[in-house]
């Protein structure tokens, strides 16, 4: 039995990896690429399911070998996988989303000439994500972690013909990479404490080691996690990353990669709880992010970007669970929200992606009334938004309430500062989340075709966004429809439907959206089954009050929306403020302020390299020439002078011979 678990765990990672390589080899062949990529994800799902099944039904060895331990003297690097309930359930969730995304992109990118490369990158990404989840070794985690970042770079920059996509990709990779530098140091500190990179050994060994080092390690790791999960102050790359094709956004920038930090901290939770300063830091970061991102999300004029900000907020939520959960509660609530968020956020992204194809854009103005025109999307989007808002009995409700429960436990049991911070910011976030969900829903269901032209004009005025050239995505149709409507901006959506309309959507894509919607509904119930192994912890009083808050938000946003002719509650803010929200309050400027001194320093370095270091080398040439000229001058060409030197030399030789003998 144990052998089959090991084999399945290896297959989970290898299948998409092989699919990525094969996919690259057949990149020109669309059907083969689709088959390979979907098969890769499907095999992973089956293998992952088998692991999940098998570990509940029999003994197994949690340590699974990979490429074998590396001989590194006093540092042990076993490079093993670690299979347990936590990793198995997350593997299954990731595999589900991955398979759904692969199916969806077969349709979404069906006229993209780089479809083959795209799905190969997604396969590679899946492999890396599985590696992070199954990793039993800090180095394997790091490998998966960074490869995910690289895939994210490739996928955001998928449409590399577009400058804004290239910029967004570069920004995303650089921001996460810079945060990862601290992550690497954190890993090195963790590993050097116990002279091994095995995660189990790290968890076993660190409780006996100095707490200060542990805090230092975790603070470094938190920077990395904040970068990867787009937490304040590294959060600004994620909205820009929406330049990538929607399936990639759904998978990487909503469901999996950005949540990997949560998983990693959950993995290390037994020692993470030992470091109160690190937990407080995490609580503060997440509190800022969850409230700030939710506020910004409300004002976004682009629904895809709104989802991106909502992702920030939700990830902050799951991280905050780790920041406050008492050791007795464990990492369960955070992981639970990870799983539920993966489901409903992927669902939302795919549904919005579908809608964006139908209406040729993701701007709120273009999508206005989209659900009314395309009623087949009504149910998936409604489920997604309700789950996001945390309405029972959907999956989002269960997971959020268990986070709330964890925070409540913290406040009642430990009474720590971080517990209060999270509790308060959670309350604010609940209201805000409900508000922007309501707003999105009202925009999508708004029906006033007569006002269409007016709204377009007013929106064009508000679109003076100078963020990372993101303005293109508002004015251009989604990547999948570039060819169809290029040159005819503002074209009625109906014409695009000929190519991409509802009639054209592939059954696989529909099934994948349906499956995600189904899971978002029943997931909340599944959580209560022993299969997941996480016991949700609900505090009914708090749950009721949060529901009350949701209701208040719903009503007030409705009222705000009704006051606007557009039906968009955010218009209440005014065009200028919306532009500010679209820029994410100008955080991008901070990055520029960090990068430009580096570039200036680089210019100084190049100048110094030429005018200081190399000049000192060149000066030896000058010195040699000068010495040559000087000694040439010393040669007067007068024999009598030479005779002086000759005899003087002989005398010196003689004297030194005598004295030194």
């Amino acid at each position, binding site marked *: 039995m144990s052998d089959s678990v090991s084999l399945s765990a290896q297959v989970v990672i290898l299948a998409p990896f092989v699919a990525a390589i094969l996919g690259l080899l057949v990149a020109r062949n669309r059907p083969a690429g689709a088959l390979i990529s979907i098969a890769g994800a499907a095999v992973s799902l089956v293998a992952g399911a088998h692991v999940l099944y098998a570990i509940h039904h029999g003994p197994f060895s949690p340590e699974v070998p990979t490429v074998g331990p590396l001989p590194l003297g006093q540092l042990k690097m076993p490079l093993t996988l670690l299979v347990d309930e936590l990793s198995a359930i997350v593997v299954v969730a990731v595999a589900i989303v991955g398979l759904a995304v692969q199916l969806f992109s077969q349709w979404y990118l069906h006229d993209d000439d780089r479809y083959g490369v795209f799905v190969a990158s997604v396969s590679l990404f899946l492999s890396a994500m599985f590696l992070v989840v199954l990793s039993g070794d800090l180095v394997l985690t790091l490998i998966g972690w960074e490869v995910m970042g690289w895939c994210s770079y490739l996928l955001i920059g998928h449409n590399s013909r577009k400058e804004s996509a290239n910029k967004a990709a570069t920004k995303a990779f650089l921001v996460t990479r810079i945060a990862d530098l601290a992550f690497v140091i954190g890993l090195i500190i963790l590993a050097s404490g116990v002279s091994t990179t095995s995660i189990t050994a790290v968890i076993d060994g660190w409780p006996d080691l100095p707490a200060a080092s542990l805090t230092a390690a975790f603070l470094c790791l938190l920077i990395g996690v904040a970068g990867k999960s787009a937490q304040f102050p590294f959060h600004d790359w994620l909205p820009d990353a929406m330049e990538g094709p929607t399936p990639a956004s759904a998978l990487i920038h909503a469901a999996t990669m950005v949540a990997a930090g949560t998983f990693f901290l959950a993995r290390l939770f037994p020692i993470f709880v030992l470091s109160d300063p690190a937990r407080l830091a995490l609580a503060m970061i997440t509190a800022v992010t969850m409230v700030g991102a939710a506020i910004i999300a409300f004002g976004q004029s682009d629904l895809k970007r709104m989802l991106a900000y909502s992702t920030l907020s939700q990830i902050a939520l799951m991280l905050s669970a780790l920041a406050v959960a008492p050791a007795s509660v464990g990492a369960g609530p955070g992981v639970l929200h990870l799983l539920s968020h993966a489901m409903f956020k992927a669902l939302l992204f795919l549904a919005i992606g579908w809608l964006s194809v139908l209406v040729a854009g993701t701007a709120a103005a273009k999508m206005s009334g989209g659900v009314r025109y395309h009623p087949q999307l009504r149910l998936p989007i409604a489920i997604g938004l309700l789950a996001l808002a945390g309405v029972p009995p959907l999956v989002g409700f269960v997971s959020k309430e268990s986070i709330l429960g964890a925070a409540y436990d913290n406040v009642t049991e430990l009474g720590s500062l971080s517990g209060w911070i999270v509790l308060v910011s959670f309350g604010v976030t609940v209201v805000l989340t409900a508000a922007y969900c309501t707003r999105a829903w009202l925009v999508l269901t708004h029906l006033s075709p007569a006002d269409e032209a007016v709204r377009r004009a007013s929106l064009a005025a508000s679109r003076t966004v100078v963020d990372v050239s993101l303005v293109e995505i508002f004015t251009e149709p989604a990547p999948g429809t570039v060819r169809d409507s290029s040159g005819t901006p503002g074209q009625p959506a109906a014409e695009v439907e000929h190519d991409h309309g509802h009639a054209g959507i592939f059954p696989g894509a529909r099934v994948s959206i349906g499956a995600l919607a189904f899971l978002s509904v029943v997931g909340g119930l599944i959580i209560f089954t022993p299969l997941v192994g996480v016991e949700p912890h609900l505090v009914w009083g708090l749950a009721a009050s949060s529901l009350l808050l949701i209701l208040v938000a719903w009503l007030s946003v409705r009222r705000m929306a009704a006051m606007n002719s557009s039906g968009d509650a955010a218009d209440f803010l005014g065009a200028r403020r919306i532009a500010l929200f679209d820029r994410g309050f100008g955080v991008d400027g901070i990055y520029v302020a960090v990068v430009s001194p580096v570039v200036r320093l680089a210019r100084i370095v190049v100048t110094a390299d030429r005018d200081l270091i190399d000049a000192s080398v060149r000066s030896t040439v000058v010195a040699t020439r000068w010495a040559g000229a000087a000694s040439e001058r010393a040669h007067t*060409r*007068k*024999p*009598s002078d030479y*005779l002086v030197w000759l005899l003087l030399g002989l*005398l010196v030789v003689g004297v030194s011979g005598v004295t030194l003998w």
Partner: protein
Amino acid sequence: MIHLWLPLLLVCVLAGAGAYGVIARRNAVLVLIGVELILNAANLLFVTTASVRGDQLRTGYVLTLFLITIAAAEMGVALAVILALFRDRGHIDLSEPGS
């Protein structure tokens, strides 16, 4: 019986005078005179040591004889060079820079 410091002192004086002559003179022939003095200092040293040592091979004396011969040969060649120089330049002043 003789105190050796006397001839040795003469050796030193001759060598010093020769060295002075080599440097202080501008005329090539006079420089040669300095060289001769140094050579003779060497000769005197040979003879002095030979007189007090008196080895079987009579090395000191024989080498002195050889040295005198070599000096003669050297003088011949040197003077020929000086003459050639004189014909070439019109002077044999060693303080003038060469071409």
